[in-house]
C-alpha cells in the first residue's frame, strides 16, 4: 500500500465529484484528502485526491477515471515532480506562560496567528504537507483543541 496523489482535471459540472469518488468507494478505498476547485479556466476543475492503496488497483482506478466522460486528464503526482501545498488551522491551548514558546514556533514556520483568546491560540500554517505535519507535531505537547487541514493541492512542475 503506497500513497498516491492523483490529480484529476474534470468538467466543472454537477455530479462529477460523485462519479470520481464512486470509483474509489466501490473498491473500499478511503480518500485521505480531497480538494476541488476551478482553475484558470472556469469550466474546468481540478480534483487532487490523496489515497493509499495497492499500486495495481490504483493503476486500474486511474484507467477507470480516464474513461469517465467528464474527466479530461488524470495524472499521478509523485513527490519530486510536483509542488504540493496544504493549509491547516490549529487551535491550541495557550496559557500565558506558554505563549512565547508558541510564538517562536509560529516564527520558525512562518505561520500566522489567526485568533487569540484567554486560554487558546488559533494558528494558521501553509506549506508542504511535511511542513504542516511537523508544525502540528511540535504543537501537540501544548494540547491541540481542534485541528483542520484543507487537504493538499498539487501542481506538476513538468
Amino acid at each position, binding site marked *: 500500500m503506497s500513497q498516491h496523489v492523483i490529480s484529476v482535471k*474534470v468538467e466543472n459540472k454537477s455530479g462529477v465529484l*460523485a462519479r470520481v469518488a*464512486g470509483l474509489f468507494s466501490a473498491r473500499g478505498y478511503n480518500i485521505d484528502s480531497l480538494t476541488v476547485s476551478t482553475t484558470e479556466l472556469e469550466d474546468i476543475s481540478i480534483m487532487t485526491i490523496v489515497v493509499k492503496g495497492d499500486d495495481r488497483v490504483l*493503476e*486500474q482506478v486511474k484507467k477507470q477515471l*480516464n*474513461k469517465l*466522460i*467528464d474527466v*479530461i486528464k488524470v495524472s499521478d503526482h509523485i513527490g519530486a515532480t510536483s509542488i504540493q501545498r496544504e493549509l491547516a488551522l490549529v487551535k491550541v491551548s495557550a496559557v500565558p506562560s506558554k505563549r512565547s514558546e508558541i510564538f517562536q514556533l509560529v516564527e520558525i514556520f512562518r505561520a500566522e496567528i489567526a485568533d487569540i483568546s484567554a486560554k487558546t491560540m488559533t494558528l494558521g500554517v501553509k506549506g508542504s504537507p511535511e511542513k504542516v505535519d511537523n508544525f502540528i507535531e511540535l504543537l501537540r505537547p501544548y494540547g491541540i483543541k481542534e485541528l483542520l487541514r484543507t487537504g493538499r493541492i498539487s501542481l506538476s512542475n513538468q
Partner: protein
Amino acid sequence: MKISGAEIIIESLKQEKIECMFGYPGGVVIPIFHHLFDAPFKFILSRHEQGAVHAADGYARASGKVGVVLATSGPGATNLVTGIATAYMDSIPLVVFTGQVSREMIGNDAFQEVDITGITRPITKHNYLVQDIQDLARIIKEAFHIASTGRPGPVVIDVPVDISKSMYKFSYPDTVSIRGYKPVTSGHPIQIERACKLIESAERPVVYAGGGVVISNASDELREFIRKTGIPITTTLLGLGIYPETDPLSLEMLGMHGTYYANHAVNQSDLLIAIGARFDDRVTGKISEFIPEAKVIHIDIDPASVSKNVMVDVPIVGDCKQVLSEINKVIRPPKIDRWLETVAGLKRDNPLTYEMSERGDIKPQYVVEQIYKQTGGDAIICTEVGQNQMWAAQFYKYTRPRTFISSGGLGTMGYGLPAAIGAQLAVPGKRVFDIAGDGSIQMNIQELIVATQHRLPIIIAILNNGFLGMVRQWQQLFFDRRYSHTCLAFAPDFEKLAVAYGAVGITVKKLEEVIPAIDRALSITDRPIIIDFHVSKEENVYPMVPAGKSIKETIMRELA
C-alpha cells in the same frame, strides 16, 4: 418556431433514424407519450420496464444498432436497473430515457421520485439529468454518440417533466465534441509490428476472441486472420459465432463450461492472442495457472481492460476491426504444424459429449442439438441464464455473429424472452429461439403477451427439469447435495400458460416427440410458441472447471 421538450425528444429520435423504441408509460412521461402517439417509429409496449430494457438490449445485439428505452420516474426507472446493468456488463449500446419529477420538486421526496442518475452511475457509461431545455437536443446527440462508440454501453437521460413541457427552438447538432471522450480506434503501428513478430515466431499460439469482435463487426477480419495464420481459435460465450464452430480450427468456447480442448490448448499455449475479450474469471479460472507459459497480445478498445486480470506483453488499444485489418496486411503464418497436430488430437480425444438415458429420458443437450439440426443452424438463439444457457452454448454450433444472444457478464435470469422479442423485431426474417429453464422463464413471462401482440413467432424452448438447475448442480457437487430451495416442484402448466397468452403450447415428455415438436413450432409463423421439454431432472453441465480452480481440476463427467 418553438416546440416542447417532449417534441424535441421525438424530433431528435427521428434525426437518429431509430426504428423502434421500447418502454412503458407513467405520470411524468405523459407529455412524451402524447407525442409518441403519432411518431414515425414503432413503440413496443412492454408489460414491465425490465422487459423493455432487455428487449432493447436484444434488439441492439441482433442489429448492431442502439436500443432505445423510455420509462417513467420512480419505480419505472428502478425497474430498469437490472437491464441497464446487464447491458453495461456486456457493452451493449442503449439510450434510456427516464421521466423525472419537475425540477423544483427534485430532492423533496416527491411522488415517484428517485435519484436515478445516482442509482445508475456505476452501471452506465454515462448519464445525464437534463437541467435546462437548451441542453436537451445536445444531450440526446451526445448520448447516442457515447452509447455507440468506443466500448459501447448504456446511457441514461433523466428528463424532468417540466422540461418536457417547456418550449424551445429545436436544432439538432451535426457533430459531437466532448473533450474528455476521444476513444482510440486505430492501433499503434509499433505495437502492431511487435505483435506480428510474436505471432510469426510463436510455436503454440491460440486466438481467444470475445464480444468485442461482435461489437466492432470484425468477424470477417478475424476469419481472414485465421485463414492467413492457421492459428486455432476459441471464443468466449459472447464471442460465439464470430468464427464458425464447424471449422476444424475452431476450439469452440473456453472457460468454466468450455470444451476440454479449448481450455487445454490455451493452457499449453506459448502465445495467447486476445481479441475483444477481457479475461473474465469464468474464462480464466485460477488465474495463476491459466497460461503458465504464454506471452499475451491483447487487442481491445478499452485501455482499462488491458492488464486488468492478466499482465499483457503487447497491448494494442484500438478497434478490433481496424487493428485486425492492419495486421492482415502484413502477417505471415507461423510454423505450427506440430502444434496443430497436438490440438487436433486434444479435440479428437476429448469431444463435447453427453450420455443418452437408458430409460429414454430426454436429455437437455439432445434438445439443443435437435434445435440446431432442425433449423440448419440458421436461427438466432437467445438464452436465459444457468444450465440452459450453457447447453445452448455447447450443443448448438454457431457460425455467424449476432446469432447467440445471452447475458454473459451479469448473468441475468429473465433476460432471454424479452431479448428474443427485441431480436425478432430487429431480424424479422430469422427464426428466434429463447432456450430457457423452468426457473428463468418465469422471471419475465409477462412479456409473452408482447410477442403475441406483435405476432412474433418466437419459440421458447423450456428445458424443464423442475430445478434451478445450475445452483442445484453446485449444491450437488460442492454442498453435499443439500438442495436447499432449488426444487421447483410447484410450477405452472406451461402449455396452458401459453394458451392463456394467445401463444401455442406444446408439452414434450417422450424422446420421440422432440423433433416433431420443434418442426411443428417452426411451421407456426404468426404467434409465439412454448415447447415445454420435460428433461432429465439431475443432468449436469460438463466439462466444469470449478470456480477459482485450474483446468487440472476439471470435472469431465458424473462421478460414480
